[in-house]
Protein backbone atom coordinates (compact mmCIF):
# COMPACT_ATOMS: atom_id res chain seq x y z
CA UNK A 1 0.00 0.00 0.00
CA UNK A 2 1.34 3.46 -0.87
CA UNK A 3 2.49 5.63 2.02
CA UNK A 4 2.56 9.37 2.56
CA UNK A 5 6.28 9.55 1.72
CA UNK A 6 5.52 8.10 -1.71
CA UNK A 7 4.06 11.49 -2.62
CA UNK A 8 6.73 13.83 -3.98
CA UNK A 9 4.99 17.17 -3.47
CA UNK A 10 5.65 18.50 0.00
CA UNK A 11 2.57 20.77 0.08
CA UNK A 12 0.31 17.83 -0.76
CA UNK A 13 1.97 15.69 1.91
CA UNK A 14 1.38 18.39 4.49
CA UNK A 15 -2.23 18.87 3.44
CA UNK A 16 -2.96 15.18 3.82
CA UNK A 17 -1.11 14.97 7.09
CA UNK A 18 -2.88 17.95 8.60
CA UNK A 19 -6.41 17.71 7.24
CA UNK A 20 -7.33 14.20 6.17
CA UNK A 21 -8.12 12.35 9.35
CA UNK A 22 -10.41 9.44 8.47
CA UNK A 23 -8.28 6.35 7.77
CA UNK A 24 -10.33 5.21 4.76
CA UNK A 25 -10.16 8.65 3.17
CA UNK A 26 -6.49 8.99 3.98
CA UNK A 27 -5.70 5.71 2.28
CA UNK A 28 -7.76 6.63 -0.77
CA UNK A 29 -6.22 10.09 -1.15
CA UNK A 30 -2.67 8.85 -0.62
CA UNK A 31 -3.35 6.23 -3.28
CA UNK A 32 -4.61 8.90 -5.67
CA UNK A 33 -1.54 11.07 -5.32
CA UNK A 34 1.07 8.34 -5.09
CA UNK A 35 0.25 7.35 -8.66
CA UNK A 36 0.15 10.95 -9.92
CA UNK A 37 3.16 12.55 -11.62
CA UNK A 38 4.95 15.45 -9.94
CA UNK A 39 3.54 17.78 -12.53
CA UNK A 40 0.00 16.67 -11.70
CA UNK A 41 0.68 17.00 -8.00
CA UNK A 42 1.76 20.58 -8.60
CA UNK A 43 -1.54 21.31 -10.38
CA UNK A 44 -3.48 19.79 -7.49
CA UNK A 45 -1.45 21.81 -4.98
CA UNK A 46 -2.20 25.07 -6.79
CA UNK A 47 -5.89 24.15 -6.93
CA UNK A 48 -6.00 23.42 -3.21
CA UNK A 49 -4.31 26.76 -2.65
CA UNK A 50 -7.03 28.49 -4.71
CA UNK A 51 -4.38 29.85 -7.09
CA UNK A 52 -6.25 29.96 -10.39
CA UNK A 53 -3.46 31.65 -12.32
CA UNK A 54 -0.99 28.88 -11.54
CA UNK A 55 -3.56 26.18 -12.32
CA UNK A 56 -4.26 27.91 -15.62
CA UNK A 57 -0.55 28.07 -16.50
CA UNK A 58 0.40 24.57 -15.34
CA UNK A 59 -2.57 22.96 -17.07
CA UNK A 60 -1.80 24.71 -20.34
CA UNK A 61 1.85 23.65 -20.05
CA UNK A 62 0.96 20.05 -19.32
CA UNK A 63 -1.40 19.83 -22.29
CA UNK A 64 1.18 21.48 -24.55
CA UNK A 65 3.77 18.97 -23.35
CA UNK A 66 1.51 16.17 -24.46
CA UNK A 67 0.06 14.98 -21.16
CA UNK A 68 -3.32 13.41 -21.81
CA UNK A 69 -6.27 15.67 -20.89
CA UNK A 70 -7.84 12.81 -18.92
CA UNK A 71 -4.72 12.50 -16.80
CA UNK A 72 -4.67 16.24 -16.03
CA UNK A 73 -8.30 16.10 -15.06
CA UNK A 74 -8.13 12.96 -12.89
CA UNK A 75 -4.68 13.22 -11.29
CA UNK A 76 -4.49 17.01 -11.07
CA UNK A 77 -7.84 18.73 -10.80
CA UNK A 78 -10.13 16.02 -9.45
CA UNK A 79 -7.52 14.76 -6.99
CA UNK A 80 -7.05 18.32 -5.69
CA UNK A 81 -10.79 18.82 -5.37
CA UNK A 82 -11.05 15.62 -3.29
CA UNK A 83 -8.90 17.23 -0.59
CA UNK A 84 -10.83 20.50 -0.80
CA UNK A 85 -14.15 18.71 -0.26
CA UNK A 86 -12.94 16.97 2.87
CA UNK A 87 -11.37 20.14 4.32
CA UNK A 88 -14.68 21.93 3.84
CA UNK A 89 -16.75 19.15 5.38
CA UNK A 90 -14.48 19.16 8.43
CA UNK A 91 -14.63 22.98 8.77
CA UNK A 92 -10.93 23.47 8.10
CA UNK A 93 -11.88 25.84 5.30
CA UNK A 94 -15.03 27.83 4.59
CA UNK A 95 -17.10 28.90 1.62
CA UNK A 96 -14.80 31.69 0.29
CA UNK A 97 -11.88 29.27 0.14
CA UNK A 98 -13.98 26.62 -1.61
CA UNK A 99 -15.16 29.21 -4.12
CA UNK A 100 -11.58 30.11 -4.91
CA UNK A 101 -10.68 26.44 -5.42
CA UNK A 102 -13.66 26.08 -7.72
CA UNK A 103 -12.46 29.08 -9.69
CA UNK A 104 -9.07 27.39 -10.02
CA UNK A 105 -10.76 24.18 -11.16
CA UNK A 106 -12.60 26.14 -13.83
CA UNK A 107 -9.34 27.75 -15.00
CA UNK A 108 -7.93 24.27 -15.60
CA UNK A 109 -11.07 22.86 -17.21
CA UNK A 110 -10.98 25.60 -19.84
CA UNK A 111 -8.00 23.79 -21.38
CA UNK A 112 -9.32 20.31 -20.89
CA UNK A 113 -12.98 20.47 -21.81
CA UNK A 114 -12.54 21.18 -25.55
CA UNK A 115 -10.12 18.26 -25.88
CA UNK A 116 -12.38 15.86 -24.07
CA UNK A 117 -15.46 16.83 -26.01
CA UNK A 118 -13.61 16.72 -29.35
CA UNK A 119 -12.40 13.23 -28.47
CA UNK A 120 -15.97 12.29 -27.54
CA UNK A 121 -14.86 11.15 -24.10
CA UNK A 122 -17.86 10.51 -21.94
CA UNK A 123 -18.34 12.25 -18.64
CA UNK A 124 -19.34 10.17 -15.63
CA UNK A 125 -22.91 11.26 -16.23
CA UNK A 126 -25.15 14.24 -16.75
CA UNK A 127 -26.78 15.92 -13.75
CA UNK A 128 -29.44 18.62 -13.63
CA UNK A 129 -29.24 20.73 -10.47
CA UNK A 130 -31.44 23.52 -9.19
CA UNK A 131 -32.82 25.22 -6.10
CA UNK A 132 -36.59 24.76 -5.93
CA UNK A 133 -39.30 27.33 -6.56
CA UNK A 134 -39.52 30.22 -4.10
CA UNK A 135 -36.04 29.62 -2.69
CA UNK A 136 -32.99 31.69 -3.46
CA UNK A 137 -30.40 29.99 -1.28
CA UNK A 138 -27.80 28.63 -3.65
CA UNK A 139 -24.45 28.52 -1.90
CA UNK A 140 -24.82 24.88 -0.89
CA UNK A 141 -26.18 23.85 -4.27
CA UNK A 142 -23.32 25.62 -6.02
CA UNK A 143 -20.77 23.83 -3.87
CA UNK A 144 -22.40 20.53 -4.80
CA UNK A 145 -22.14 21.48 -8.45
CA UNK A 146 -18.47 22.32 -8.09
CA UNK A 147 -17.77 19.00 -6.45
CA UNK A 148 -19.81 17.12 -9.06
CA UNK A 149 -17.90 18.82 -11.85
CA UNK A 150 -14.75 18.25 -9.89
CA UNK A 151 -15.57 14.56 -9.83
CA UNK A 152 -16.09 14.39 -13.57
CA UNK A 153 -19.82 14.92 -14.06
CA UNK A 154 -21.38 17.24 -16.57
CA UNK A 155 -23.76 19.49 -14.64
CA UNK A 156 -26.48 21.74 -15.96
CA UNK A 157 -27.22 24.41 -13.37
CA UNK A 158 -30.77 25.74 -13.45
CA UNK A 159 -30.01 28.30 -10.77
CA UNK A 160 -32.51 29.30 -8.10
CA UNK A 161 -36.29 29.59 -7.91
CA UNK A 162 -36.72 26.71 -10.36
CA UNK A 163 -40.24 25.74 -11.36
CA UNK A 164 -41.36 22.15 -11.89
CA UNK A 165 -41.66 22.82 -15.59
CA UNK A 166 -38.11 24.02 -15.87
CA UNK A 167 -36.84 20.89 -14.16
CA UNK A 168 -38.87 18.74 -16.53
CA UNK A 169 -37.88 20.71 -19.62
CA UNK A 170 -34.21 20.54 -18.67
CA UNK A 171 -34.30 16.77 -18.19
CA UNK A 172 -35.89 16.35 -21.61
CA UNK A 173 -33.72 18.91 -23.35
CA UNK A 174 -30.41 17.59 -22.05
CA UNK A 175 -31.31 13.94 -21.90
CA UNK A 176 -30.01 13.79 -18.35
CA UNK A 177 -31.02 11.00 -16.03
CA UNK A 178 -29.94 12.42 -12.68
CA UNK A 179 -31.75 15.28 -10.99
CA UNK A 180 -30.64 17.12 -7.85
CA UNK A 181 -32.86 19.55 -5.97
CA UNK A 182 -31.83 21.87 -3.16
CA UNK A 183 -34.05 23.70 -0.62
CA UNK A 184 -33.08 25.70 2.46
CA UNK A 185 -36.48 26.90 3.58
CA UNK A 186 -39.20 24.89 5.27
CA UNK A 187 -41.60 26.91 3.13
CA UNK A 188 -40.03 25.64 -0.08
CA UNK A 189 -39.15 22.06 0.87
CA UNK A 190 -42.59 20.79 -0.18
CA UNK A 191 -41.81 21.98 -3.71
CA UNK A 192 -39.40 19.05 -3.98
CA UNK A 193 -42.26 16.63 -3.47
CA UNK A 194 -44.42 18.56 -5.91
CA UNK A 195 -41.69 18.40 -8.54
CA UNK A 196 -41.39 14.65 -8.06
CA UNK A 197 -45.16 14.36 -8.55
CA UNK A 198 -44.92 16.46 -11.68
CA UNK A 199 -42.37 14.00 -13.04
CA UNK A 200 -44.77 11.15 -12.28
CA UNK A 201 -47.60 12.98 -14.04
CA UNK A 202 -45.36 13.65 -17.03
CA UNK A 203 -44.56 9.93 -17.19
CA UNK A 204 -40.86 10.60 -16.71
CA UNK A 205 -40.29 9.51 -13.13
CA UNK A 206 -38.96 6.06 -14.04
CA UNK A 207 -36.37 7.50 -16.41
CA UNK A 208 -34.51 9.48 -13.77
CA UNK A 209 -32.92 9.20 -10.36
CA UNK A 210 -33.67 12.06 -7.99
CA UNK A 211 -31.51 13.27 -5.11
CA UNK A 212 -32.38 16.03 -2.67
CA UNK A 213 -30.50 18.09 -0.10
CA UNK A 214 -30.24 21.37 1.80
CA UNK A 215 -29.99 22.09 5.51
CA UNK A 216 -33.60 21.39 6.61
CA UNK A 217 -34.01 18.29 4.42
CA UNK A 218 -33.68 14.90 6.10
CA UNK A 219 -33.50 11.29 4.98
CA UNK A 220 -37.04 10.76 6.32
CA UNK A 221 -38.36 13.71 4.39
CA UNK A 222 -36.61 12.50 1.25
CA UNK A 223 -38.12 9.02 1.65
CA UNK A 224 -41.56 10.44 2.28
CA UNK A 225 -41.43 12.51 -0.89
CA UNK A 226 -40.26 9.57 -2.91
CA UNK A 227 -36.78 10.80 -3.74
CA UNK A 228 -34.14 8.19 -4.57
CA UNK A 229 -31.52 9.66 -2.29
CA UNK A 230 -30.66 12.29 0.27
CA UNK A 231 -27.23 13.84 0.71
CA UNK A 232 -26.17 15.82 3.74
CA UNK A 233 -23.21 17.52 2.08
CA UNK A 234 -21.42 18.00 -1.22
CA UNK A 235 -19.37 14.83 -0.87
CA UNK A 236 -22.53 12.83 -0.21
CA UNK A 237 -24.00 14.46 -3.31
CA UNK A 238 -21.11 13.17 -5.39
CA UNK A 239 -21.37 9.62 -4.03
CA UNK A 240 -25.10 9.58 -4.72
CA UNK A 241 -24.55 10.75 -8.27
CA UNK A 242 -21.87 8.10 -8.77
CA UNK A 243 -24.19 5.46 -7.39
CA UNK A 244 -27.00 6.61 -9.72
CA UNK A 245 -24.63 6.61 -12.67
CA UNK A 246 -23.48 3.11 -11.76
CA UNK A 247 -19.95 4.40 -11.20
CA UNK A 248 -19.69 4.04 -7.43
Amino acid at each position, binding site marked *: MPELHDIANEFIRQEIDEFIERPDERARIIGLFAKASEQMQAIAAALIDGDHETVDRLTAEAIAAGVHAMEVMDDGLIAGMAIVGIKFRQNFIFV*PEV*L*SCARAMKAGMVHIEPILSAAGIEKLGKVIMGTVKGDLHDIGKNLCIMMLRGAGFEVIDLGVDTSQDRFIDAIEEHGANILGMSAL*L*TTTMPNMGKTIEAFIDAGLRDDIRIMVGGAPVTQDFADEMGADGYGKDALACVSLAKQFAGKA
Partner: protein
Amino acid sequence: MNSRQRVLAALNRQPVDRTPVCNPTSVATVELMDLVDAPFPNANREPERMARLAATSYTELGFDSIMPVFSIIQESSALGCKIQWEQKDNWPTVRMREPIWQTADDIRVPDDFLDHPDTRCVTEAIRLLRREYGNEVAIIGKTMGPWSLGYHCFGVEPFLLLSLDNPGQTKLCLDRMKEATIRFGLAQIEAGADALTLPDHATGDLVSAQYYARYLRDLHIEFAERLKVPIILHICGRTVDRMPYIAETGMAAFHYDSKNGPEESMAICRDRVALVGNINNPETLFSKGPEAVRAEVVRNLEAGVNLVGPECAIPLQTAIENLKEIPRAVRDWHNDRARIN
Protein backbone atom coordinates in the same frame (compact mmCIF):
# COMPACT_ATOMS: atom_id res chain seq x y z
CA MET B 1 -42.76 45.06 35.21
CA ASN B 2 -44.53 45.42 31.89
CA SER B 3 -43.27 43.80 28.72
CA ARG B 4 -41.31 46.82 27.59
CA GLN B 5 -39.52 47.24 30.91
CA ARG B 6 -38.79 43.55 31.04
CA VAL B 7 -37.22 43.43 27.57
CA LEU B 8 -35.16 46.55 28.09
CA ALA B 9 -33.92 45.37 31.47
CA ALA B 10 -32.96 41.97 30.07
CA LEU B 11 -31.15 43.57 27.13
CA ASN B 12 -29.14 45.54 29.65
CA ARG B 13 -28.57 42.38 31.71
CA GLN B 14 -30.45 43.82 34.65
CA PRO B 15 -32.80 41.88 36.97
CA VAL B 16 -36.24 40.96 35.60
CA ASP B 17 -39.41 39.60 37.20
CA ARG B 18 -39.39 36.82 34.59
CA THR B 19 -37.45 36.08 31.43
CA PRO B 20 -38.92 38.03 28.52
CA VAL B 21 -40.02 36.30 25.31
CA CYS B 22 -38.79 37.99 22.22
CA ASN B 23 -38.20 37.42 18.54
CA PRO B 24 -35.77 39.96 17.14
CA THR B 25 -36.17 38.61 13.60
CA SER B 26 -39.67 37.79 12.36
CA VAL B 27 -42.84 36.27 13.84
CA ALA B 28 -44.93 36.43 10.70
CA THR B 29 -46.87 33.26 9.94
CA VAL B 30 -49.59 32.53 7.42
CA GLU B 31 -52.09 31.91 10.23
CA LEU B 32 -51.35 35.30 11.78
CA MET B 33 -51.59 36.97 8.37
CA ASP B 34 -55.10 35.56 7.96
CA LEU B 35 -56.09 36.50 11.46
CA VAL B 36 -55.47 40.22 10.96
CA ASP B 37 -55.79 40.41 7.17
CA ALA B 38 -52.19 41.40 6.64
CA PRO B 39 -50.72 38.92 4.16
CA PHE B 40 -47.37 39.02 2.42
CA PRO B 41 -46.40 40.73 0.18
CA ASN B 42 -48.57 43.67 1.36
CA ALA B 43 -47.42 43.33 4.95
CA ASN B 44 -43.89 43.98 3.74
CA ARG B 45 -44.86 47.11 1.80
CA GLU B 46 -47.74 48.88 3.56
CA PRO B 47 -47.06 50.42 6.99
CA GLU B 48 -50.53 49.74 8.45
CA ARG B 49 -50.48 46.08 7.47
CA MET B 50 -46.87 45.71 8.54
CA ALA B 51 -47.70 47.15 11.97
CA ARG B 52 -50.84 45.04 12.26
CA LEU B 53 -49.08 41.78 11.51
CA ALA B 54 -46.16 42.65 13.81
CA ALA B 55 -48.48 43.49 16.71
CA THR B 56 -49.81 39.92 16.74
CA SER B 57 -46.64 38.79 18.48
CA TYR B 58 -47.93 40.71 21.52
CA THR B 59 -51.69 40.52 21.10
CA GLU B 60 -51.99 36.91 19.91
CA LEU B 61 -48.83 35.13 20.98
CA GLY B 62 -48.08 36.91 24.23
CA PHE B 63 -44.48 37.81 23.40
CA ASP B 64 -42.92 40.83 25.11
CA SER B 65 -41.71 42.54 21.96
CA ILE B 66 -43.02 43.66 18.59
CA MET B 67 -40.80 43.54 15.50
CA PRO B 68 -42.24 44.82 12.23
CA VAL B 69 -39.51 43.89 9.74
CA PHE B 70 -40.23 40.36 8.54
CA SER B 71 -37.66 40.29 5.79
CA ILE B 72 -34.05 41.34 5.33
CA ILE B 73 -34.45 43.26 2.13
CA GLN B 74 -36.21 46.57 2.86
CA GLU B 75 -33.05 48.70 2.65
CA SER B 76 -31.59 46.62 -0.19
CA SER B 77 -34.68 47.55 -2.17
CA ALA B 78 -34.03 51.22 -1.35
CA LEU B 79 -30.42 50.79 -2.47
CA GLY B 80 -31.63 49.62 -5.88
CA CYS B 81 -31.55 45.80 -5.68
CA LYS B 82 -34.16 43.92 -7.66
CA ILE B 83 -36.64 42.31 -5.32
CA GLN B 84 -38.87 39.33 -5.83
CA TRP B 85 -41.74 40.17 -3.50
CA GLU B 86 -43.30 36.71 -3.57
CA GLN B 87 -46.73 35.79 -2.21
CA LYS B 88 -48.34 35.10 1.12
CA ASP B 89 -46.53 31.82 1.58
CA ASN B 90 -42.97 33.00 1.09
CA TRP B 91 -40.52 35.68 2.14
CA PRO B 92 -39.41 38.32 -0.34
CA THR B 93 -35.88 38.10 -1.57
CA VAL B 94 -33.18 39.93 -3.47
CA ARG B 95 -32.25 38.70 -6.94
CA MET B 96 -28.61 38.28 -6.02
CA ARG B 97 -27.84 36.92 -9.48
CA GLU B 98 -28.23 40.47 -10.73
CA PRO B 99 -25.83 42.41 -8.51
CA ILE B 100 -25.98 46.20 -8.56
CA TRP B 101 -22.37 46.85 -7.57
CA GLN B 102 -18.98 45.41 -8.55
CA THR B 103 -16.42 47.57 -6.75
CA ALA B 104 -16.23 49.95 -3.81
CA ASP B 105 -16.49 52.87 -6.23
CA ASP B 106 -19.95 51.75 -7.30
CA ILE B 107 -21.33 52.04 -3.79
CA ARG B 108 -23.85 54.82 -3.40
CA VAL B 109 -26.28 55.22 -0.56
CA PRO B 110 -28.79 57.54 -2.23
CA ASP B 111 -29.58 60.82 -0.47
CA ASP B 112 -33.25 59.93 -0.46
CA PHE B 113 -32.56 56.41 0.84
CA LEU B 114 -34.85 56.99 3.82
CA ASP B 115 -37.68 58.33 1.64
CA HIS B 116 -37.87 55.18 -0.46
CA PRO B 117 -41.26 53.46 0.07
CA ASP B 118 -39.62 50.27 1.38
CA THR B 119 -37.54 51.99 4.08
CA ARG B 120 -40.35 54.46 4.83
CA CYS B 121 -42.72 51.56 5.33
CA VAL B 122 -40.59 50.42 8.27
CA THR B 123 -40.23 53.81 9.95
CA GLU B 124 -43.96 54.48 9.47
CA ALA B 125 -44.86 51.11 10.94
CA ILE B 126 -42.65 51.80 13.95
CA ARG B 127 -44.39 55.16 14.45
CA LEU B 128 -47.79 53.48 14.39
CA LEU B 129 -46.69 50.78 16.80
CA ARG B 130 -45.06 53.28 19.13
CA ARG B 131 -48.30 55.24 19.29
CA GLU B 132 -50.45 52.22 19.98
CA TYR B 133 -48.25 49.98 22.11
CA GLY B 134 -45.23 52.10 22.93
CA ASN B 135 -45.65 52.19 26.68
CA GLU B 136 -46.35 48.53 27.24
CA VAL B 137 -44.30 46.57 24.69
CA ALA B 138 -40.75 46.86 23.43
CA ILE B 139 -40.75 47.93 19.78
CA ILE B 140 -37.73 46.50 17.99
CA GLY B 141 -36.51 47.77 14.63
CA LYS B 142 -34.08 46.13 12.21
CA THR B 143 -31.18 47.46 10.20
CA MET B 144 -29.00 45.16 8.13
CA GLY B 145 -25.25 45.07 8.67
CA PRO B 146 -22.80 45.72 5.82
CA TRP B 147 -21.79 42.07 5.43
CA SER B 148 -25.37 41.08 4.59
CA LEU B 149 -25.80 44.14 2.41
CA GLY B 150 -22.68 42.97 0.58
CA TYR B 151 -24.39 39.66 -0.26
CA HIS B 152 -27.39 41.52 -1.62
CA CYS B 153 -25.63 44.25 -3.57
CA PHE B 154 -22.59 42.34 -4.87
CA GLY B 155 -24.02 38.81 -4.95
CA VAL B 156 -22.91 36.22 -2.41
CA GLU B 157 -20.20 34.53 -4.44
CA PRO B 158 -18.57 37.66 -5.88
CA PHE B 159 -18.59 39.23 -2.42
CA LEU B 160 -17.06 36.19 -0.72
CA LEU B 161 -14.40 35.89 -3.43
CA LEU B 162 -13.59 39.58 -3.08
CA SER B 163 -13.12 39.06 0.64
CA LEU B 164 -10.44 36.48 -0.10
CA ASP B 165 -8.78 38.22 -3.05
CA ASN B 166 -8.72 41.75 -1.81
CA PRO B 167 -9.18 42.38 1.91
CA GLY B 168 -8.44 46.11 1.55
CA GLN B 169 -11.13 46.61 -1.06
CA THR B 170 -13.54 44.50 0.99
CA LYS B 171 -12.98 46.67 4.05
CA LEU B 172 -13.55 49.77 1.97
CA CYS B 173 -16.83 48.31 0.68
CA LEU B 174 -17.99 47.47 4.19
CA ASP B 175 -17.06 50.90 5.39
CA ARG B 176 -19.09 52.56 2.66
CA MET B 177 -22.09 50.28 3.06
CA LYS B 178 -22.16 50.84 6.82
CA GLU B 179 -23.66 54.27 6.16
CA ALA B 180 -26.87 52.54 5.07
CA THR B 181 -26.87 50.51 8.29
CA ILE B 182 -26.41 53.59 10.44
CA ARG B 183 -28.82 55.88 8.64
CA PHE B 184 -31.62 53.33 8.59
CA GLY B 185 -30.95 52.52 12.24
CA LEU B 186 -31.03 56.14 13.33
CA ALA B 187 -34.25 56.73 11.41
CA GLN B 188 -35.92 53.85 13.24
CA ILE B 189 -34.70 55.09 16.60
CA GLU B 190 -36.10 58.47 15.72
CA ALA B 191 -39.41 56.84 14.81
CA GLY B 192 -39.55 55.24 18.24
CA ALA B 193 -37.71 51.92 18.19
CA ASP B 194 -36.61 50.82 21.68
CA ALA B 195 -33.94 48.53 20.31
CA LEU B 196 -32.59 47.40 16.96
CA THR B 197 -31.83 44.00 15.51
CA LEU B 198 -28.72 44.08 13.36
CA PRO B 199 -28.40 40.97 11.20
CA ASP B 200 -24.98 40.51 9.65
CA HIS B 201 -24.65 36.99 8.24
CA ALA B 202 -21.02 36.19 8.93
CA THR B 203 -22.02 32.69 10.01
CA GLY B 204 -19.81 29.69 10.63
CA ASP B 205 -21.71 27.98 7.84
CA LEU B 206 -20.03 30.37 5.43
CA VAL B 207 -16.93 32.02 6.88
CA SER B 208 -14.36 31.48 9.61
CA ALA B 209 -14.21 33.17 13.02
CA GLN B 210 -11.05 34.97 11.85
CA TYR B 211 -13.21 36.58 9.17
CA TYR B 212 -15.48 37.97 11.84
CA ALA B 213 -12.51 39.39 13.71
CA ARG B 214 -10.87 40.77 10.57
CA TYR B 215 -13.86 42.35 8.89
CA LEU B 216 -16.66 42.93 11.35
CA ARG B 217 -15.57 43.29 14.94
CA ASP B 218 -14.55 46.93 14.64
CA LEU B 219 -17.61 47.84 12.61
CA HIS B 220 -19.86 46.21 15.17
CA ILE B 221 -18.15 48.15 17.94
CA GLU B 222 -18.85 51.29 15.95
CA PHE B 223 -22.54 50.38 15.52
CA ALA B 224 -22.91 49.76 19.23
CA GLU B 225 -21.45 53.21 19.88
CA ARG B 226 -23.31 55.20 17.25
CA LEU B 227 -26.76 53.63 17.50
CA LYS B 228 -27.72 54.62 20.99
CA VAL B 229 -30.32 51.99 21.79
CA PRO B 230 -29.62 48.37 22.73
CA ILE B 231 -28.45 46.54 19.60
CA ILE B 232 -29.23 42.85 19.10
CA LEU B 233 -26.73 41.29 16.72
CA HIS B 234 -28.23 38.43 14.72
CA ILE B 235 -26.12 35.78 13.03
CA CYS B 236 -27.67 32.42 12.25
CA GLY B 237 -25.90 29.11 12.03
CA ARG B 238 -22.82 28.02 13.95
CA THR B 239 -21.32 30.94 15.87
CA VAL B 240 -19.77 29.63 19.13
CA ASP B 241 -16.30 30.09 17.68
CA ARG B 242 -16.90 33.83 17.18
CA MET B 243 -18.91 34.53 20.33
CA PRO B 244 -15.76 35.59 22.21
CA TYR B 245 -15.33 38.39 19.66
CA ILE B 246 -19.01 39.28 19.61
CA ALA B 247 -19.00 39.52 23.40
CA GLU B 248 -16.39 42.28 23.14
CA THR B 249 -18.27 44.54 20.73
CA GLY B 250 -20.45 46.37 23.22
CA MET B 251 -23.58 45.07 21.51
CA ALA B 252 -26.35 44.64 24.10
CA ALA B 253 -27.39 41.21 22.92
CA PHE B 254 -26.68 38.37 20.53
CA HIS B 255 -29.51 36.45 18.87
CA TYR B 256 -28.20 32.92 18.51
CA ASP B 257 -29.12 29.81 16.56
CA SER B 258 -29.97 26.32 17.79
CA LYS B 259 -26.79 24.96 16.23
CA ASN B 260 -25.09 26.32 19.36
CA GLY B 261 -25.86 24.87 22.77
CA PRO B 262 -27.33 27.29 25.36
CA GLU B 263 -24.84 26.16 28.02
CA GLU B 264 -21.68 26.55 25.95
CA SER B 265 -22.95 29.87 24.58
CA MET B 266 -23.76 31.23 28.03
CA ALA B 267 -20.35 30.15 29.27
CA ILE B 268 -18.80 32.51 26.72
CA CYS B 269 -21.30 35.38 26.79
CA ARG B 270 -22.34 35.66 30.44
CA ASP B 271 -21.72 39.14 31.92
CA ARG B 272 -20.60 40.51 28.57
CA VAL B 273 -23.50 40.25 26.15
CA ALA B 274 -27.09 39.10 26.68
CA LEU B 275 -28.24 36.05 24.72
CA VAL B 276 -31.56 35.78 22.87
CA GLY B 277 -32.78 32.51 21.42
CA ASN B 278 -32.56 29.72 20.45
CA ILE B 279 -35.67 27.56 19.86
CA ASN B 280 -35.07 25.53 16.72
CA ASN B 281 -37.23 26.55 13.77
CA PRO B 282 -37.39 23.78 11.19
CA GLU B 283 -37.19 20.75 13.46
CA THR B 284 -39.03 21.99 16.54
CA LEU B 285 -41.35 24.97 16.02
CA PHE B 286 -42.33 23.89 12.54
CA SER B 287 -42.37 20.11 12.80
CA LYS B 288 -42.98 19.14 16.40
CA GLY B 289 -45.55 19.94 19.08
CA PRO B 290 -45.75 22.10 22.21
CA GLU B 291 -43.98 19.49 24.38
CA ALA B 292 -40.80 19.70 22.31
CA VAL B 293 -41.00 23.50 22.28
CA ARG B 294 -41.32 23.53 26.05
CA ALA B 295 -38.25 21.35 26.46
CA GLU B 296 -36.12 23.78 24.47
CA VAL B 297 -37.49 26.78 26.35
CA VAL B 298 -36.62 25.13 29.66
CA ARG B 299 -33.13 24.28 28.49
CA ASN B 300 -32.53 27.95 27.66
CA LEU B 301 -33.95 29.10 30.97
CA GLU B 302 -31.87 26.61 32.93
CA ALA B 303 -28.78 27.83 31.12
CA GLY B 304 -29.61 31.42 32.10
CA VAL B 305 -30.31 32.76 28.60
CA ASN B 306 -31.53 36.36 28.99
CA LEU B 307 -34.39 36.46 26.49
CA VAL B 308 -36.10 33.37 25.11
CA GLY B 309 -37.48 33.07 21.59
CA PRO B 310 -37.15 31.44 18.17
CA GLU B 311 -33.66 31.26 16.65
CA CYS B 312 -34.48 33.23 13.49
CA ALA B 313 -37.40 34.23 11.28
CA ILE B 314 -39.93 31.52 12.07
CA PRO B 315 -41.15 29.35 9.21
CA LEU B 316 -44.32 30.88 7.77
CA GLN B 317 -46.31 27.67 8.26
CA THR B 318 -45.52 27.37 11.97
CA ALA B 319 -48.58 26.59 14.11
CA ILE B 320 -49.70 29.36 16.48
CA GLU B 321 -50.06 26.76 19.24
CA ASN B 322 -46.33 26.12 19.18
CA LEU B 323 -45.52 29.81 19.39
CA LYS B 324 -47.92 30.41 22.26
CA GLU B 325 -46.20 27.62 24.11
CA ILE B 326 -43.04 29.71 24.45
CA PRO B 327 -44.42 32.38 26.84
CA ARG B 328 -46.53 29.73 28.57
CA ALA B 329 -43.49 27.57 29.25
CA VAL B 330 -41.51 30.58 30.47
CA ARG B 331 -44.25 31.54 32.94
CA ASP B 332 -44.63 27.98 34.21
CA TRP B 333 -40.91 27.60 34.75
CA HIS B 334 -40.72 30.82 36.74
CA ASN B 335 -43.81 29.86 38.78
CA ASP B 336 -42.35 26.47 39.59
CA ARG B 337 -39.13 28.06 40.69
CA ALA B 338 -40.96 30.57 42.89
CA ARG B 339 -42.86 27.71 44.50
CA ILE B 340 -39.71 25.73 45.22
CA ASN B 341 -37.89 28.71 46.75
